[in-house]
């Protein structure tokens, strides 16, 4: 039984700056970045656990998070509106 999703669309979140070993699906370039919840994708078994043939349950809420490129790269030269969207699990997010 999953706990209810913590973040609603539109909420600002910061990606945790953790650096554990293991199979992680939160890209390095997003760690520590501030973005906005675009939507809740649903709840999924944790891939960090599935990687070791464990069930990865209870399912963890997964969010699509939108980041401004100018937030990710200090020297970004495209449009100020350009963005990256990444799917990130709830345990990697803190309120910003």
């Amino acid at each position, binding site marked *: 039984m999953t706990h209810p999703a913590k973040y609603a669309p539109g909420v600002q979140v910061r990606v945790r700056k953790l650096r554990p*070993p293991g*199979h992680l699906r939160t890209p*390095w*370039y997003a760690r520590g970045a501030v973005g906005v919840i675009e939507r809740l994708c649903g709840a999924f078994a944790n*891939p960090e656990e599935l*990687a*070791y*043939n464990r069930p990865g349950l209870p399912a963890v809420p997964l969010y699509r998070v939108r980041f401004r490129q100018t937030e*990710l790269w200090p020297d970004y030269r495209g449009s100020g509106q350009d963005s990256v969207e990444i799917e990130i699990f709830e345990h990697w997010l803190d309120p910003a």
Partner: protein
Amino acid sequence: MRDMTMRGHHDMGGLAAGEIPREGHDHAWWEKRVDALQVLLSSPRHALLKVDELRRNIEALPPDAYDRMSYYERWIAAITATLLQRGVFTAEELGRRMAEIEARERS
């Protein structure tokens, strides 16, 4: 630079890189068979491995091997590693069979 050892070699988003190589190659039959193995073994019908285990095993490849190996070489290496971890066959069985195949190919 110290930070780089904590970053997975596969976790390359944002790193500097050169021109995107555009020439492709037609998939060889062995590559298509590797693809088929992955699909079949991870399907609910067989459930002998999870794609996440395959990814973890690919990520565990030494950086120079990761760069040198082709996409499907990495996949077969990871499928094999996962099946060994799951105990589907032993290293001995695999080693003997690989040696037999090499001998077959040479004759």
